[in-house]
């Protein structure tokens, strides 16, 4: 539990700091999604259930801090669909590279947001879909490469060997 709280606070901090920065492109829904580094790290390190719990806790806490109902619905749709895509991609028999798992997450995050947008804003927003798919590829690649770097550093420090059994202990 302490570990999960720690991961939640790390990802919430990243999420809140990123929300303070100006959007990387003047297109609705485009962002880097750096907090995904935490979700992806936990997922690859073996804790599928822990990763989902931390993701959900982060989304709810972020909604309380930001206080916007609409952005909560959007990030919930995007976050859960991205998680499902990353879980599927990371659990395939052939071990796919972490950056690719992240790109899948990025694309499906934006598809999830698009579904929410069509429901709450109307079908006119569908024109943004190709822009969001490309943005998802780029953002996913960036966070994926960052996650890979974090994993290598943690592995070198010996932290991964300590964390992995704890995370895997909760299937």
């Amino acid at each position, binding site marked *: 539990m302490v570990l999960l709280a720690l991961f939640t606070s790390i990802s919430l901090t990243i999420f809140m700091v990123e929300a303070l920065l100006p*959007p990387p492109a*003047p*297109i*609705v*829904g485009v962002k880097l999604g750096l907090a995904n580094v935490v979700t992806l790290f936990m997922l690859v390190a073996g804790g599928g259930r822990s990763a989902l719990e931390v993701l959900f806790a982060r989304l709810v806490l972020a909604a309380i801090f*930001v206080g*916007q*109902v*609409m*952005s909560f619905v*959007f990030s919930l749709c995007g976050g859960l669909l991205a998680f499902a895509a990353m879980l599927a991609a990371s659990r395939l028999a*052939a*071990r*796919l*590279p972490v*950056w*690719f798992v992240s*790109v899948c997450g990025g*694309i499906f995050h934006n598809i999830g947001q698009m579904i929410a*947008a069509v429901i*709450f*804003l*109307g079908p*006119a*927003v569908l*024109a*943004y*879909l*190709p*822009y969001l*798919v*490309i943005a998802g*590829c780029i953002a996913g*690649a960036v966070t994926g490469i960052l996650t890979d770097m974090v994993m290598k550093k943690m592995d070198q420090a010996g932290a991964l060997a300590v964390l992995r059994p704890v995370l895997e202990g909760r299937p």
Partner: protein
Amino acid sequence: LNKRGKNLKKQVLCLLIVVLVAAGSAFAIWQERQTAEAGQLAYIYSDEKLVRTVDLSGDVGLRLRVDSPDGGYNIVEVHDGAIGVTEADCADGVCMHTGFIRSSKLPVVCMPHKLVIRVGNPSENGVDTVAK
């Protein structure tokens, strides 16, 4: 060495898939830009309801305020056959960054305020023109 070669193959294959998906999206954007043409009317939706239809050639210099269900607002202006948001109290300001639109290509969207502005022509669909 064999394992390394296999890993490289996987990396290249993954890269290929991502490039294909991105290229497909880029093609969709390109095609949409080719077919987009300037529209006569702008439809302003708030919370999925059409609140106003604006004649882009007639309503020159129009400035109106659209109140959103969450208590916020967007100031919409019409200039030279184009429409855009010039002022808003939303968190991200993406609606203002989108600038002015004159074609059906991309709508102006303010996600926090559930505002959508799209441009079209009277002939394209009967339902919206009746609502004027």
